[in-house]
């Protein structure tokens, strides 16, 4: 069972959350909050009650117990865009609000979570299994219909297609991410085509312009500040880059992640 509540505007949200949790025997409690001042007491009370808590933006998810999915699918082994197509086909036949359990490998994880969110479904939980695969629980949502309302641009999607062979563009990719953060624009980096070369272990270590720090140092800085760096799965595969020689902190993703970012109204793409 999934219970979704809002504690917006409440002075003591933890009191309400505790009452709700007391009555829940299993499932997931999803709480919409006003922000950090409400999230903290909620997290505290949930931890006190020994529940696992996840926070995403202003939403807190408390795992009370098992959640029964009405359907399940295993997409381990399929490569981009296979998993999202297989999952979308199943979701198409399901009712809004129904739950689907997906077992996927690491390669497809970001694509599925980002891609499905982009289509309007809700990712309820992601759990790493003992065999290294992941269990994703998705709630079928309704198709997103957004009106022509004006939206503030608060994210940039920096796409590098040239790689280490073009040092200036490579440097720009990570410098722009840094500057964007300082301007309160959330950056996300996507490496595709030749850009995927930046993801090869040790590759950015080899790029050093006399007047700039090593490229790898910039990359580390950007990663440490929480910026996501995605690498196109197919571009990586074309270039012999896989989980084994992938630079630490980089994540393999694919077309669904790419298009999800490009279709967000609050995101501007930067092509390099």
């Amino acid at each position, binding site marked *: 069972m999934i*219970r979704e509540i809002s504690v*917006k505007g409440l002075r003591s949200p933890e009191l309400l959350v505790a009452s709700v949790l007391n009555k829940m025997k299993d499932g997931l409690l999803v709480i919409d909050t006003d922000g950090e001042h409400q999230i903290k007491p909620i997290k505290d009370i949930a931890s006190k009650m020994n529940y696992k808590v996840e926070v995403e933006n202003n939403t807190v998810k408390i795992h009370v117990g098992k959640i029964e999915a009405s359907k399940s699918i295993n997409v381990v082994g399929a490569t981009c865009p296979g998993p999202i197509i297989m999952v979308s086909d199943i979701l198409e036949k399901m009712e809004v609000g129904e739950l689907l359990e997906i077992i996927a490998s690491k390669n497809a994880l970001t694509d599925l979570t980002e891609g499905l969110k982009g289509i309007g479904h809700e990712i309820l939980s992601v759990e790493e299994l003992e065999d290294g695969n992941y269990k994703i629980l998705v709630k079928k949502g309704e198709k997103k219909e957004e009106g022509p309302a004006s939206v503030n641009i608060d994210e940039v999607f920096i796409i590098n297609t040239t790689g280490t062979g073009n040092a200036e563009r490579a440097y720009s990719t990570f410098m722009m991410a840094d500057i964007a953060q300082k301007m309160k624009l959330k950056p996300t980096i996507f490496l595709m085509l030749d850009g995927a070369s930046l993801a090869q272990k040790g590759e950015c270590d080899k790029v050093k312009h006399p007047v700039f720090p090593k490229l790898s140092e910039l990359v580390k800085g950007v990663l440490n500040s929480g910026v996501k760096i995605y690498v196109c799965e197919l571009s990586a595969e074309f270039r012999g880059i896989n989980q084994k020689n992938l630079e630490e902190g980089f994540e393999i993703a694919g077309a669904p992640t790419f298009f999800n970012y490009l279709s967000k109204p609050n995101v501007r793409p930067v092509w390099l």
Partner: protein
Amino acid sequence: MDIKELGKKLEELLELEYPAVGVKLAKSEDEVPKEYEELEEPIRHCEMIQIARKEGKKFYAPLDKHSCKGGAYAIGILQNPPEPLATGKLYYKLGNFETEEGAVKTVEAIPKVKEKIYASVYAPLSDTDFDPDSIMVISSPKKGLRLVQALLYKEGGRFQADFAGIQSLCADAVAAVKVRGVANATLGCNGSRKYAHIDDGEMVFAFPSSDLENIVKALEHFKEIWG
């Protein structure tokens, strides 16, 4: 003990003038008890509660029988409300808030049933034929006090009520209880005071049916010790 019996006991123990009301939000026609009739003329959700409470009627109301869009929207019956209602700007125009931002902020925080509801079903609790999503007791604050004490009797804690003076019997007393699964109290709103005639001395308590048995047990206990 079934709900009807518990409902009767609740009435007796709290010495209610009118019965408590059970409200169910039916997702489809199949969830509406067969013998229940559709309401004839469109009225407000809060007025429907009073019909069940004061006239003892059992009935249901789909979208076209809800004349208050705010109420129908809060309980999931109306899915695409007019823009001023959905954003909250309506309540700024009605004079409830100094700024439009205040109105928007309030409406954003109002409990709401997100899933699509086919109809709302009403019956006096002592004669109900369904498992209600919310049980509503409209009473004096003194009787409310006993009810809150009964709610806390088994597990303790604090009773927390939240309301904003708008969308009261719909959002605070039905949507909040259904969505959260816990009790709430509310003071009514302009509409429910004016059109549904909630008396000046009355306030509204609502709780899920899962609390009913514990409440009745606690009230019996209180009766024994406090008379």
